[in-house]
């Protein structure tokens, strides 16, 4: 029961911080984060997906984001055309509300890390994890843009059933699963104390064929070299088997 107490405290603190930080994000942080995300997407999108001839992403007067993604598509011939249509890039708009999801992981990550005991000890994981989450959000946005471009292209040149399914599944993961779930494993991976406090299932289990955790070497225990007697005692049962 005592092992459950830190988890219960973490749940209460985490829930309270999630409410606080998400309200803070929704009303104050969303616009600055969207601004940073758009500029980052412009830089990395131009490098990875776009071309230099036109901006990769622009903001429309209504606040939606307009993208131009280079994509080579051959559309079937229409009755009024002489031949098939070669398309070199796809332009499309994404509603501003759809882009919000790509800034949402940050406050969730902050809430989890700050809910861990010891705020001072959480500073380094907080900074390191924030960088990781920010990178992940940019990558997710770029994947979402690429999938949206391919979906738009599918209206001109039909795709196979598998491709459609794969794009739909990818979009679901990128928009509805990863932004919500990723902050939790990232927090656990960067915050050692959080991990050791809550993932206790590795504790006290025997290590097959190895040293027993309680029989650490004398040097490791107190910085002094071990005596012969100590060494014999440490090695005894494990060597015999």
């Amino acid at each position, binding site marked *: 029961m005592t*092992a*459950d107490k830190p*988890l219960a405290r*973490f*749940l209460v603190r*985490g*829930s309270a911080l*999630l*409410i606080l930080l*998400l*309200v803070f994000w*929704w009303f104050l942080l969303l616009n600055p984060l969207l601004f940073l995300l758009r500029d980052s997407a412009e830089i990395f999108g131009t490098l990875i997906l776009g071309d230099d001839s036109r901006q990769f992403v622009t903001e429309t007067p209504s606040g939606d984001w307009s993208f131009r993604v280079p994509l080579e598509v051959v559309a079937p011939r229409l009755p009024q055309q002489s031949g098939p249509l070669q398309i070199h890039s796809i332009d499309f708009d994404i509603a501003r509300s759809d882009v*919000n999801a790509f800034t*949402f992981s940050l406050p*969730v990550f902050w*809430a*989890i890390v700050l809910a861990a005991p010891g705020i001072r000890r959480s500073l380094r994981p907080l900074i390191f994890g924030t960088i990781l989450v920010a990178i992940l959000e940019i990558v997710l946005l770029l994947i979402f843009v690429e999938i949206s471009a391919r979906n738009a292209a599918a209206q001109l040149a039909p795709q196979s059933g598998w491709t459609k399914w794969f794009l739909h599944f990818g979009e679901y993961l990128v928009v*509805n*699963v990863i932004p*919500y*779930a990723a*902050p*939790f494993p990232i927090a656990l991976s960067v915050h050692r104390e959080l991990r050791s406090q*809550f*993932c*206790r*299932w*590795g*504790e006290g*289990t*025997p290590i*097959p064929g190895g040293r027993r955790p309680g029989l650490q070497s004398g040097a490791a225990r107190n910085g002094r070299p071990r005596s012969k007697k100590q060494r014999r005692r440490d090695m005894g049962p494990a060597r015999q088997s």
Partner: protein
Amino acid sequence: MKVSHGLIGICGGHARVEGAVLRDPATGFAVEMRDGCNAVNVTILLWSAVLAFPAPWRLKALGFLAGSLLIQAVNIVRFISLFYIGQYSMTWFDFAHGYLWESLLVLDTMVVFCLWANRASKYGAVPNDGR
């Protein structure tokens, strides 16, 4: 839906169930319980984690059952709260529906899994560390 409707009634509120829709007879505001709204995604997440964890099947079955019940309990609170938040403000409804409750459910699922895994390891499960 029926549990939510019953709880609202017990607490003195008024609501009407129309299939998968919960409606306030006074304001006409209604919320619909769709496939994704029944916490199926986080339940699958929990089941996957429990299934992947090296524990006896008896403990896994307990994890499936108790974990799903806890998640469903939280989801009922979520559904009722959204029913009232929506009547107050649609902006707050969008925020609570799209972001706040989603992350609270994932947090809840993570804690439920950690609680179960800690207990499962205490009662004899030995994680396979790959060696």
